[in-house]
C-alpha cells in the first residue's frame, strides 16, 4: 500500500471511530433531557433513574468522543497539511465555531453529570438542555466543513491560491443544508435505536419490567419520529447531489451511461472497464425519478467524466445501497411502532418486534458509517471537489504504516473497553423498587 492509501485509511479509521461517539454525543443528551423533563413533569422516579443511568453511560462515551475528536482536529494537518495550509482560512471558521459549541457541551456536561445534588432540579435540567444544544450545534458546524469539501464556494482561485475568501458563503455552501439535516437526524435516530436496542434486549428476558418499558418507549419516540423525516431528507440529498456532484451520483447508482428515463439498479457488480453492472435488478425510470422527480429526466453517467475523476464505483455503489436498505428496515420498524401505538395505545412488545429493535441498534450505526463511506469515497479523487486532489494534499511524511497501525490498535482497544464497560453498566437490572412502581 502507498503512503497516500495509509493516510486515507488512517483518516477513515479515525472518522469511522469518532463518528459513533459524535452521533451519541448529539443524540444521548436529547434523551437524557427528555427523561429528566418527564421526571420534572410527572415526578415518577423511574424517569429520574433513567436520566441517571443514561448519563452514567454518556460519561464514558463522551470522554472517548472528546479525545478521538482531538485526534481528528490534529490529523487534518498531520495527514493533509497542504489542504489545511490552503483551505484552513476558509473551513477553519466552522471548526472554530464548533470549538465553542463543543466547549459549551463539555462544560455543561460536567455540570449535568456531577451536579445532581448540587443544583436545583430545573437548573440541572437546563444545563442538560445546553449540553444537547452544544452537541447538536457542534455537529452542524463540523458537517458544514465537510459540505464545503463537497461543494466548495466562497473563494476565487488566482494563480493556484484561494483568494477573495468569504467564510460565511463557504459555510452556506449548496451541500450544507442537506448534509447537516441528514447527519443530525442520523445521529438522533442511531442513538434512539441503540438505546432502544439495549432496553429491548433486556425486555426480551423480562417482559413486564416497567423500567425498561419506559426506557424503550422514550427511545422509540425519538427514533421513530425522526426516521420518516430522514427518508425525506435522504431524497433531498440525492437530488442535491445529482445537481452539484453528478459524478458522485453516477457512482452511487453505478450509472455509467448518460440516459433519459434511467433505471435504478439494485445490487449488482459494477465493472469499470466494461462499463456495465452485472447481476443487478433494474427498476425502469427509477433513477431519473429519484434524482429529479421526473420519470423521463436525463441523468448524467460516469462516461461524461474522465476515468481519472471517477471514485471507486463498487465501494460507493454498495455502501449507498446498503445504507438505503438499512434505512428502509428502520422505516418499516418505525411505521409498525407508530401503527401499534395508534391502535393499542401501548408499547409494541411483540417478540419479533423487540428482536427487530435489537438489530436496529447496530443497523442504524451501520447506516451512519455507510453514509460516510458514500460521501467521503464518493468525493474522491478530490479532497476539495473539483479544486484539489487528495494526492496533492497528503503529507510528505513517509512510513505512514506506523501511525496507521498504532492508531488501529489503540482504537480497537478503546472500542473493546467501551463495549465491555457499557455492558457492565447496562446489563445490570434496574433497582427492584422501580421495576413495578409504574403501571
Amino acid at each position: 500500500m502507498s503512503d497516500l492509501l495509509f493516510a486515507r485509511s488512517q483518516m477513515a479509521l479515525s472518522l469511522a471511530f469518532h463518528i459513533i461517539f459524535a452521533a451519541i454525543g448529539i443524540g444521548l443528551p436529547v434523551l437524557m433531557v427528555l427523561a429528566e423533563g418527564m421526571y420534572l413533569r410527572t415526578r415518577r422516579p423511574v424517569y429520574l433513574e433513567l436520566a441517571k443511568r443514561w448519563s452514567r453511560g454518556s460519561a464514558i462515551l463522551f470522554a472517548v468522543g472528546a479525545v478521538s475528536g482531538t485526534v481528528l482536529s490534529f490529523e487534518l494537518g498531520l495527514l493533509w497539511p497542504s489542504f489545511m495550509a490552503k483551505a484552513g482560512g476558509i473551513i477553519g471558521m466552522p471548526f472554530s465555531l464548533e470549538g465553542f459549541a463543543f466547549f459549551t457541551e463539555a462544560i455543561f456536561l460536567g455540570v449535568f453529570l456531577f451536579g445532581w445534588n448540587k443544583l436545583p432540579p430545573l437548573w440541572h435540567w437546563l444545563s442538560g438542555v445546553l449540553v444537547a444544544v452544544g452537541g447538536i450545534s457542534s455537529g452542524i458546524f463540523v458537517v458544514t466543513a465537510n459540505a464545503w469539501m463537497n461543494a466548495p464556494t466562497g473563494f476565487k482561485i488566482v494563480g493556484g491560491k484561494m483568494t477573495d475568501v468569504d467564510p460565511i458563503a463557504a459555510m452556506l455552501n449548496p451541500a450544507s443544508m442537506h448534509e447537516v439535516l441528514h447527519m443530525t437526524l442520523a445521529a438522533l435516530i442511531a442513538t434512539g435505536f441503540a438505546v432502544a436496542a439495549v432496553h429491548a434486549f433486556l425486555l426480551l428476558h423480562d417482559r413486564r419490567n416497567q423500567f425498561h418499558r419506559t426506557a424503550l418507549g422514550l427511545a422509540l419516540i425519538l427514533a421513530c419520529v425522526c426516521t420518516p423525516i430522514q427518508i425525506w431528507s435522504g431524497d433531498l440529498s440525492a437530488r442535491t447531489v445529482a445537481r452539484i456532484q453528478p459524478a458522485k451520483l453516477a457512482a452511487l447508482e453505478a450509472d455509467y451511461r448518460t440516459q433519459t428515463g434511467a433505471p435504478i439498479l439494485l445490487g449488482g457488480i459494477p465493472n469499470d472497464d466494461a462499463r456495465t453492472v452485472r447481476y443487478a435488478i433494474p427498476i425502469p425510470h427509477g433513477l431519473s425519478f429519484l434524482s429529479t422527480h421526473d420519470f423521463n429526466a436525463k441523468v448524467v453517467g460516469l462516461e461524461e467524466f474522465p476515468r481519472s475523476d471517477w471514485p471507486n464505483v463498487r465501494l460507493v455503489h454498495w455502501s449507498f445501497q446498503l445504507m438505503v436498505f438499512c434505512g428502509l428496515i428502520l422505516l418499516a420498524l418505525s411505521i409498525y411502532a407508530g401503527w401499534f401505538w395508534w391502535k393499542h395505545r401501548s408499547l409494541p412488545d411483540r417478540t419479533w418486534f423487540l428482536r427487530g429493535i435489537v438489530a436496529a441498534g447496530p443497523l442504524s450505526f451501520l447506516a451512519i458509517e455507510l453514509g460516510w463511506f458514500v460521501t467521503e469515497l464518493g468525493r474522491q479523487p478530490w479532497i476539495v471537489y473539483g479544486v484539489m486532489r487528495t494526492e496533492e494534499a497528503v503529507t510528505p511524511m513517509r512510513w505512514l504504516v506506523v501511525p496507521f497501525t498504532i492508531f488501529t490498535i489503540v482504537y480497537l482497544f478503546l472500542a473493546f473497553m467501551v463495549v465491555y464497560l457499557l455492558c457492565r453498566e447496562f446489563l445490570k437490572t434496574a433497582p427492584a423498587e422501580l421495576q413495578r412502581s409504574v403501571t
Partner: protein
Amino acid sequence: MLAFVVSIFLLAALIFYVTAGGADFGGGVWDLLAIGPRATQQRAAITKAIGPIWEADHVWLILVVVILFTAFPIAFGAMMTALHIPITLMLIGIILRGAGFIFRKYDSKASEVQRRWSALFGAASFFTPLVQGVTLGALSSEEIRVVDGKVTTGFFAGWLTPFACVSGLLVLTVCAFLAATYLTADPAGEPEVRNDFRRRAIWSGSILPAIVLLLLLAAQNGAPQFVQRMASWPAMAVGIGIAAFTVVALVSLTMRRFAIARAAAIAEVTLILIGWGWAQYPNLITPDVTIQNSSAPAATLRLLLIALIIGAIVLFPSLAFLYYIFKDKGSRPVKAGPE
C-alpha cells in the same frame, strides 16, 4: 494588526490550556507518583478534583488548534509536517490519559484492575505534557526551515535538540506544580492529604525556577533569536515578575496560605508563557514562519475575531459556573450521586 490581535487570543487560549488542562495532566503525574501510606487517598483526591472538569479543560487545546489553523493555516501545515512524530505521540498520550482515567472510574474496583488503569492514566499524564513541551520548544529551535510553505528540513529537525528537551521538562514541571498547588487548595480535602500535596507543591515549585534558568542556558546555543528577544526590558520585567510570584507561591505554601499560593502559581505560570510568547514573537516557527507571512485572509481573521469575542462572552460565565459548583461548593456534604 488583525493577525497580531488573533495571535494574542491564541496565546491566551494556550495559557488557559496550560493553567487548566495542564494541571489535569499534573494531577495524573501525582497519581503516578502517589506513594506512602496515603497513596489511595491521594489518588481519590486527584480523581475527585479533575473528574468534573478535565473534559472542559481539555477543550482549550482544541481551541488552540482551531485558532491556529483558521488564522495561520500555513504555519499549521508546516508545524504538522515537521513535527508529525512528536504530535502523533502527544495524541496517543491524550487518548490514553483520557481512556485510563475514565476506564479506571467505571471498571471493576478490584485492586489489580484499578492499579492497571492508574498506571496507564499516570504514565500518559506524565508523557503527554513532556512531548507538548518538546513540540513547543522545537518551534523556537531555528532548525525547522520552511520555504514557500513547504518544510525542507524533514521530520526530525528541532524536536530532538537539548532546548526542546528542556522545554518538555519545563512544561511537565509546570503541570505538576500547578496540580499540587490546586490540590492543596481544596477545602474539602483531608488535612493530611492536603499536606502531602503541599510538600509536593513546594518541591516542584522550587525546581521550576532552576528549569527556567536551564532553558535559558540551553537557548544560548539552541535558540539564538529567542535569547535575543529575552535580553530586552519587557522580557526582564516579565522575568522579575516570574521570580516575585515564585517567591510568593513558595512562601504562602510554606505558611499554608493556600488560596494565595494558588493565585501566585497561576500568575507565575501565566508570566512564563507570556515571556515565551514575547521571546517567540513574531515567529510561529522561527525563523521562517511569522504571524504576518502565514496568516489567513483579513476576512477570515475579522470573522474569527468576532467569533472569539462572542465565544469568550459565553464561555467565561459558563466556566466560572462550572468551577463555582465544583470547587467552591465542593466543601458541602453531598449525598451519593450517580457519579
